[in-house]
């Protein structure tokens, strides 16, 4: 007999937990080894991204669509992105403020400095991939909870 669906509350918990800690949603649903594997893989991608000056994108109203997508890709990895932003920008910076804003120059300079690094393009690919892979994992958690996958 097929297993029953996971309750809505537990599914929601697994998805939230999976976003906070990559792979934790799988672990909560009993796929511990798979969860650990994804944790290591996404953690490696995220670490490589930070080590190679990957872009921690800032939303800019002048290029709302692309910068918005970039921030989503960054944030997909969970609170680790917030920790990285606190470490790099010294504040939870997600947006490039208006040019008249006193914090504009500081954020823009930090952003440009990282972008100028010779390895930033590699780092950005690792960082965005880590976030996007984690978002895909949340869909996988959903499928497992709904018994569409084993």
């Amino acid at each position: 007999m097929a297993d029953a669906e996971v309750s809505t509350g537990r599914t929601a918990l697994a998805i939230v937990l999976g976003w906070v800690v990559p792979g934790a949603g799988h672990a909560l649903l009993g796929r511990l080894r798979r969860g650990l594997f994804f944790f290591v893989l996404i953690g490696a991608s995220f670490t490589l991204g930070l080590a190679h000056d990957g872009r921690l994108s800032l939303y800019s109203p002048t290029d709302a669509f692309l910068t918005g997508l970039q921030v989503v890709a960054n944030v997909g990895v969970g609170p680790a992105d917030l920790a990285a932003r606190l470490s790099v920008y010294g504040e939870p910076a997600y947006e490039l403020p208006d040019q008249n804003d006193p914090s504009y120059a500081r954020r823009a300079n930090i952003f440009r400095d990282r972008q100028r690094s010779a390895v930033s393009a590699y780092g950005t690919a690792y960082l965005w991939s880590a976030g996007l892979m984690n978002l895909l994992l949340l869909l996988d958690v959903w499928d497992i909870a709904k018994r569409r996958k084993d």
Partner: protein
Amino acid sequence: MRSHFGHLVVYSGIVAAFFSVLTRRDRTDQLKFAAWAWLTMTGGVLLLAYLMLPFPR
């Protein structure tokens, strides 16, 4: 690491491993898929680079 080829190998390895475990359940299938995906990505990039040789910047 500044080697473009090194990053190609590592990055395609991460992506191939991720999608193999995400989309395949059987261990043998996972290994086959990972090898196929990794070879396709690295081989595809090398082929593209070769094809671009006659067109320098």
